[in-house]
């Protein structure tokens, strides 16, 4: 249980920074593209600004990601023995095929503006983004395999790979990948939108803010609007391959036709027989999953009580995620309409709303993650290995308490530092173009003639 708390805490924390990084990586590519085409200093200043925010966030993402890789062996030794043949491979592949790419070209983005040609620099922005997207492929292959294992056989009490393609493209991988990446794009767009809205409110960097805000609103609306369809695709897959998890999402006990869909509610768990009070659409779940109210949905009664996940947590996080995702569509749509009516900058309440939305997609993402991971309990690999059988036999509770305390302390300090720096960069804003040009002229002068590359 302690290991679970530690893992949940460290992954949840990691998963604040990853979506911001992925979203900002996209923004870096957009702004570098603009600069590459225009070659005007204002676009360079804009791009530098996004790169600063991106790298600050990426640094924490890298550092906390290392924790995750180490935690499998350290806290989950028996799990690692059981799944090493399958689960370890995508982690190693992530390192070799994605992480090297990101990290190496991140160095070029950070230090190489004057050292490489403009084309190479622009290509580096692309390579970093491709690296982050590839990273997510491998990590989500590993995670999806825990949810819907495929392409394996059990030999001597260990899962052994029998088909790489079946294991990699296991049933939940495709919907999960699209769902996660689009969620990260939404999160990135809201980060960008809230920064720009703040500048508009403070009447600073207006040109920069207008330009970036439109990009964020258009991309954000497209991504948010696509989300219900992607989410639905993912839900159909869950209902098919992890019916108990779907039942837990809606806390449906009886396997039955015309199963209800809750908009919100409160679960009272009477020894695994849940009673939900809230607003429901009768037959809604059946309609959603089978396009007919007579569609029979599998309930929690299909498995023994010890094979059911904790209901309240799963129900609430799932419903909060969905409610937030509809809120995102509304906010993005409203802001974009106001923009086209040329009234966005006068609607200060709407700009403040955009600023306030900064953390909401991150909350939605963490809720979605909680729903999917807790919804899989008590299994660490669905149907194969229980979470309680995956922990390290030799790591003592005292050791986990000690490291949990240290993680809490270090992560808190890092969070404060990150927030200070992130907000500091925003407060400072993109470089003033005139100052930037003067600084460049000044630094270019001392270089001896003929020594340049």
């Amino acid at each position, binding site marked *: 249980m302690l290991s679970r708390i530690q893992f949940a805490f460290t992954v949840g924390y990691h998963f604040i920074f990853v979506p911001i990084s992925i979203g900002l990586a996209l923004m870096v590519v957009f702004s570098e593209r603009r600069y590459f085409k225009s070659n005007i200093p204002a676009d360079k200043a804009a791009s530098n600004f996004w790169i*600063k925010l991106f790298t*600050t966030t990426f*640094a*924490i993402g890298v*550092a*906390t990601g*290392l924790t995750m*890789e*180490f935690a*499998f*062996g*350290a*806290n989950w*030794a*028996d799990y*690692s*023995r059981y*799944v*090493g*043949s399958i*689960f*370890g*491979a995508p*982690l*190693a*592949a*992530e*390192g*070799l*095929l994605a*992480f*090297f790419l990101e*990290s*190496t070209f991140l*160095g*070029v983005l*950070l*230090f*190489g*503006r004057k050292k490489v040609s403009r084309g190479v620099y622009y290509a580096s922005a692309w390579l970093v983004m491709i690296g982050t997207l590839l990273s997510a492929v491998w990590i989500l292959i590993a995670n999806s395999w825990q949810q819907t294992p495929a392409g394996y056989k059990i*030999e001597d009490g260990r899962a*052994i*790979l*029998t*088909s*790489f393609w079946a294991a990699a493209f296991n049933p939940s991988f495709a919907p999960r990948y699209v769902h996660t990446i689009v969620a990260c794009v939404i999160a990135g767009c809201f980060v960008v939108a809230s920064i720009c809205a703040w500048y508009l409110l403070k009447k600073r960097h207006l040109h920069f803010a207008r330009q970036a805000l439109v990009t964020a609103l258009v991309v954000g609306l497209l991504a948010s609007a696509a989300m219900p369809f992607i989410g639905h695709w993912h839900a159909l897959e869950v209902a098919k391959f992890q019916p108990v998890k779907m039942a837990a999402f809606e806390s449906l006990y009886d396997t039955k036709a015309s199963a209800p869909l809750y908009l919100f509610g409160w679960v009272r768990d009477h020894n695994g027989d849940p009673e939900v009070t809230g607003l429901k659409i009768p037959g809604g779940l059946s309609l959603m999953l089978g396009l007919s109210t007579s569609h029979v949905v599998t309930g929690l009664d299909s498995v023994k009580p010890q094979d059911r996940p904790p209901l309240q947590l799963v129900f609430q996080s799932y419903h909060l995620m969905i409610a937030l995702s509809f809120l995102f569509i509304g906010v993005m749509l409203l802001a974009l309409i106001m923009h086209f009516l040329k009234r966005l900058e006068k609607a200060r309440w709407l700009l403040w709303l955009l600023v306030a939305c900064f953390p909401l997609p991150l909350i939605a993402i963490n809720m979605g993650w909680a729903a999917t991971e807790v919804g899989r309990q008590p299994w660490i690999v669905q149907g194969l290995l229980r979470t309680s059988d995956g922990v*390290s*036999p*030799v*790591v003592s509770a005292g*050791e986990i308490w000690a*490291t949990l305390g*240290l993680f809490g302390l*270090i992560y808190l300090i*890092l969070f404060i*530092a*990150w927030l200070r*720096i992130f907000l*500091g*960069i925003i407060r400072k804003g993109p470089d003033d173009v005139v100052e930037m040009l003067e600084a460049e002229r000044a630094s270019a002068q001392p270089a001896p003639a003929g020594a340049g590359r």
Partner: protein
Amino acid sequence: MTLENIWFFLVAFLLTGYVILDGFDLGAGVLYPFIARNEDEKRVVRASIGPIWDGNEVWLVAGAGAVFAAFPMVYAMTFSGFYLAIMLVLFGLILRAVSLEFRHRDKSWSKVWDGAFFLGSLVPSILVGCALGNVIRGVPMNANGDYTGTFLQLLNPYSLLVAVTGLFLIVTHGAAWLALKSEGAMHARAVQYRKITFWVCAVLAIATSVATIATVSRASDNVLGRPLGWCFLVVLLLSLLYTIRQMMKEGAELRSFLGSAVTIVALAGIAAVGNYPEIVPARGTPPETSLTVTNSASGHLTLQVMLIVAIIGCPLVLLYTAYVYWVFRGKTKAADAEY
């Protein structure tokens, strides 16, 4: 050459790559408070490793991932058995990574980040060697492949000797790097440090060899009984003789840096030959509890698929890593720092 053996070699390759590449930037971090005396010099130290340290650390990510995929039993045993040490390495690397990115953006906490950079470099530099010492010496294990000793047993004299040797190797490597990248007063200091620490290294390496022959005869017998072991020994001897001469000279910066890299390769090769075919030998428990290349390996198909991944990935990685080192070649100046 079976698949398991190829993977033993690949894991050794990745981890040696880690020690060589992250080694010099860890070493630079350990030297940082001593060698950089003002803001400009500090900036040069950070900027000299700035563009590349992140990529260097990925060698550890890839190496650990490769152990997980290819030898999951070893991964599970070492990471859970050396739990506190692993967590301390992790905390060190986290603080270090963040301090490098945050230091220049955060003037008011500059002392905090300087301290984090130093400690975050020092702790992994010591503990990685300590873990290696235990892996060479062997640890007590049960039939499930779990470590059965205590944390304090890991801090035995032999492993501590390997840890100190490793630390000095990394520091020398870091000093050689800084001599290569810096100019002026700091360059002179780096050359000075490089001379002293390399002598300490040479003495410690001999002490470790003697200690290995005396207390871990399995490893020394393996090295002395195999042609490959002798090859690495000859390489070690030649590289020590060559590198000592380069390290003492001023102006032989690249040659001394490459010399210390070759020394690391030779030492890593000796350690790998000494352990093979065991990866983690049992000590004090029945020999069948040892984790060997065969009994700890992953499924056959996994090794095959991962080999394809490695064949595609490794050359690409080496290619663009070399490119980035080429881009950032030459002396680092304070003005090259982050914007």
